[in-house]
């Protein structure tokens, strides 16, 4: 399974859940070095995905707030 395919349908919520699982595993398990490397790589990928989602969300929220030139003011 490619990384792209792995990220298909991924949401922020799912990403954070997976991240927590990975962190717990990395911190506590006695996995092999290869497994550890894979987990770390996946975790960094998920972190980047989450950061990007948050950034995009923030930008979208800012943009529609700017679009609202309120008659309220």
């Amino acid at each position: 399974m490619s990384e792209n395919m792995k990220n298909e349908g991924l949401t922020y919520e799912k990403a954070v859940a997976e991240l927590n699982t990975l962190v717990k595993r990395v911190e506590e398990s006695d996995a092999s070095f290869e497994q550890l490397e894979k987990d770390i790589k996946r975790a960094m990928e998920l972190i980047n995905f989450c950061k990007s989602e948050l950034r995009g969300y923030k930008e979208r929220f800012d943009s529609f707030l700017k679009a609202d030139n309120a008659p309220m003011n």
Partner: protein
Amino acid sequence: MVQEQETYKLIEFLSSISGVVQSNFPDSKWVEAEISRPSGVGGPGHCYMDLVQLDESGNTIAQVSAHIWQYKNQQISQKFLNATGRFFDQGDKVRLLVKADLSPRYGFSLNITDIDPSFTLGELALKKKETWKRLENEGLTELNKELEVPILPFTIAVISAKGAAGYEDFMEHINQAEKELDCAFKIDLYEAPMQGDSAPEGIYSAFEQINESPRRYDVVVFIRGGGSELDLACFDDYLICKAIAECNYPVISGIGHERDNHLCDDVASVRVKTPTAAAAFLIDMIAAQKAEVEDVEKAILYIVGDKISEANLLLERLFSKLSSSSVEKINGQQLLIQELVSRLSGRYAEKMNLQQLLLQEFVSKLSSSNSERIINQYNVLEKIRSSLIFAVSNRVTIGERELSVLEQKIIASDPANILEKGYGYLDVDGSKLTNIQALKEGSRVRLKMKDGVAEFNIENLKLTLPTPQQN
């Protein structure tokens, strides 16, 4: 020697003339004249005056003294009063029954024995008719009517005599309305004589002052309390009608009582019967607008209240959705928020903008209490909007912190960092080596270091375990 001619004593001579006058004018005659310098009219004594006739230029072409003896004074004066509403006075055109009288003691005079008030009234009516025709010819009859009274006539110029009953009535109603409607009129009084010969010029001058004033008025109120028909006759004067017609502002004319009708009423933008009615006209306009604005205010409060509830609900839902950190759900909320914002700014903006025209006047002219309530509602909505922004921003910040913590943990666990510092990483039989007792003779060991991996089997294993401490 001068022959002595017949010489009379003065009284004999005048009595002789008087006799001639009496014999030649034995009967009373009706004469038309204008009254000048009357005194004692309707009083307990004799009444004296001059009777004059003027030419078209106003020059006196005939003049004679006249009197009404005491016994006739009250009867004649009262007759005129009953018909016209007041005693005859300077300048009145009258028709009198007179008898020539030459008294040796007091000279020639006309003895007035009766008066015809209908002549005076007819003269006024005729003059009124002529004035109206002149106004029509000069295009002045409709001029002021073309000016409409603004829907909120708060700034008012009043032409009246200060202290006059009509003005007091007007102000009393206005003051009462200010309390009841919670509003404030701006009223400037332009004083003018409201009866007598000086009235037309004084009133014309007041209109000139109003037109030239730097203050812009919504309306001019021209009022005078009731009076006799002759007292109010000046309100048929050409000069006053011209002043009203040419006024820069719509004029509300409220002259006299119910039965009176004057040319100034006919040329004014609005005619009412009395000063009180003039106040009522203005108050009704304000009250109607206030009611309309209050309806709008209710509608806006309803809309704003509705939107606040919607926003509150939305906020609660947003918080709950945010707590699950679901971007999908957040996006869904964004759509709801966008819809709310666009509905507030779009769907209602037009309606609100239309009403704001009314509100602007309302806010500036009515006392601030009601408008403050509307502004407060706007502020509440703004606060909710700010809360939304804060909540969303806060949620983003929390998300970022959570991510940062996870990232730190991952980085701390990354074996690459350990290897970088010169340490190694041991796998024993495919599992991470976490304790020394996991090592067995013959176990397959993999050692990973920064620069490579070494694999080997354990031979000659000797374990040294720490001796448990004795307490």
